[in-house]
């Protein structure tokens, strides 16, 4: 078989590989050739690991030949550079990690390895996952495959762009305040943030531990279900990881939406949203009604306080998590006359501007005299935000909103004003504060041809309903997907 193998979905590649019509090595070669062709323009990757990838592909082909292929055998993936990958440089897009080569794998990386997946390389991102545009990378910004003058979104912009531009079959990202869903929306692919604690965070470089969650970027809803089957589940290395059994998410894709109640929060349709985004979301809701679902207005009254709450809690947790970068055990070291000077200088030269800004804000919020007024206050408002969702889910099975108020913005447009950048996460951040699963579905294009994303939010641990609804919408043919011309 010839042709554009890199355009395959996981489900399609899985069938072709199982029937031995293509080999894992051919598929890996096709993806790496595609990367060589387009990534100079996109900058979706920080590090490529072709020799490791071909070794994995050769092993996958042997297993396929023996007929004992595991779930993801021979599927080439891009991995956000926040995951520890044994023997492959991991930077978190920061100078402070220097040439750090992890001595062990993150749990999800080990699981993907065991499932036969192939790692093409490490995807670009905002430094330490702090950003909404992937412009805060020490390795330069990722560009949007639909328009190279626009951002890919962030923080997992490299993963989103790599999937959209068919540089890989699927990718891994992480989501602390929207870092999977927003770039998925900006790049026109599927991105899912599972329930907090559904997937292990062991070996995922920590930003804000009570909010961080692992998730896939894929070309279809079915592929997201397939990947989540391997990613989810209890991990003895992460005591916060839920001990619940993992359902077969792919089997949940029945296409049947009869009786499904979709809540539409009135607070999410407000001034400031691009007209074309709102029209596209409304059309998607109509399509859901045509498919047998019912929509009902719900209210999430504390929505307006989510960004303020998030930027206290996330930065406070980050200031503690990033205290470990001290120039002693790994990463960059800038010499000083004593230890304190060494720490101060290493951190000054190793961290970028946004990371410093967030460490400062978080340290301020936790400092003596401000803890109760900021940190404790934000934890209490977090409770109010959670309760909003609990009440809303008494009336509906899923909540539907836009992913972002606009389509992808221009490179540089929001870099001078951190607060404006923070506000681009307005529709995704509450989901992390409440610990809920959320997903971005491509649902349209604006008049400039930029993708628009619909967000579905589920109750805790109901990824099945969310994926079923995403798959039903996608396979109904409501949207003709337009691959980017990179």
């Amino acid at each position: 078989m010839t042709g554009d193998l890199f355009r395959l979905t996981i489900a399609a590649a899985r069938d072709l590989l199982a029937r031995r019509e293509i080999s894992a090595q051919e598929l890996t070669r096709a993806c790496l050739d595609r990367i060589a062709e387009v990534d100079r323009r996109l900058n979706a990757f920080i590090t490529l690991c072709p020799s490791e990838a071909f070794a994995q592909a050769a092993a996958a082909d042997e297993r396929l030949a023996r007929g004992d292929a595991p779930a993801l055998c021979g599927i080439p993936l891009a991995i956000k550079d926040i995951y520890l990958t044994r023997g492959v440089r991991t930077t978190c897009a920061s100078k402070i990690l220097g040439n750090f080569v992890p001595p062990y794998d993150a749990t999800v990386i080990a699981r993907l390895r065991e499932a036969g997946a192939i790692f093409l390389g490490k995807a670009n991102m905002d430094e330490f996952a702090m950003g909404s545009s992937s412009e805060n990378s020490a390795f330069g910004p990722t560009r949007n495959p639909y328009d190279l003058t626009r951002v890919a979104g962030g923080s997992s912009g490299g993963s989103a762009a790599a999937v959209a531009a068919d540089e890989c079959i699927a990718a891994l990202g992480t989501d602390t305040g929207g870092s999977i869903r927003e770039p998925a929306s900006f790049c026109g692919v599927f991105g899912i943030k599972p329930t907090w604690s559904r997937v292990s965070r062991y070996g995922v470089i920590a930003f804000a531990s009570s909010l961080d969650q692992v998730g896939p970027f894929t070309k279809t809803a079915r592929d997201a279900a397939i990947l989540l089957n391997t990613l989810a589940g209890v991990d003895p290395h992460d005591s916060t990881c839920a001990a619940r059994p993992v359902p077969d998410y792919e089997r949940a894709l029945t296409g049947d939406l009869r009786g499904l109640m979709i809540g539409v929060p009135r607070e999410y349709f407000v001034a400031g949203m691009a007209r074309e985004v709102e029209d596209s979301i409304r059309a998607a809701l109509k399509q859901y009604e045509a498919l047998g679902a019912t929509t009902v207005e719900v209210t999430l009254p504390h929505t307006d306080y989510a960004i303020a709450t998030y930027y206290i809690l996330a930065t406070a947790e980050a200031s503690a998590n990033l205290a470990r970068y001290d120039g002693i055990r790994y990463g960059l070291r800038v010499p000083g006359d004593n230890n304190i000077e060494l720490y101060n200088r290493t951190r000054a030269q190793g961290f970028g501007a946004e990371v410093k800004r967030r460490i400062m804000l978080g340290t301020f919020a936790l400092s003596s005299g401000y803890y109760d007024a900021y940190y404790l206050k934000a934890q209490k408002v977090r409770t109010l935000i959670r309760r909003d969702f609990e009440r809303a889910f008494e009336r509906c099975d899923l909540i539907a909103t836009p992913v972002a108020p606009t389509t992808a913005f221009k490179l540089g447009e929001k870099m001078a004003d951190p607060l404006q950048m923070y506000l681009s996460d307005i529709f995704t951040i509450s989901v992390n504060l409440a610990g809920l699963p959320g997903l971005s579905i491509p649902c349209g294009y604006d008049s400039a041809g930029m993708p628009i994303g619909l967000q579905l939010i589920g109750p805790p641990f109901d990824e099945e309903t969310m994926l079923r609804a995403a798959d039903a919408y996608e396979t109904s043919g409501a949207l003709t997907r337009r691959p980017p011309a990179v």
Partner: protein
Amino acid sequence: MSDHRIDLEQVRHVARLARLELSAEEERSLAADLSAIVSYIDKLNQLDTANVEPTTQVAEAGTPTRDDVVTNQPASAQMLANAPARQDNLFLVPKIIE
């Protein structure tokens, strides 16, 4: 939006706590950025939270315990492989006692 000024003195204090050496230019821009962000965040004071419990994490169960057994083997060579400075089996740091 309230107007909450963070002055240079506060920026220097917080930078000391955060172990960050800042240039004069960074101090000035952080004072401006943090003032704007904290002024925005002050909107939380519009909410009465006197009788609201704080959320520290959203997991369903408490923290599980495990048996106190060693599961990883000593691997000091691997752990030292990324050290910026080392001597024998040790991380090397500047002298801290005169």
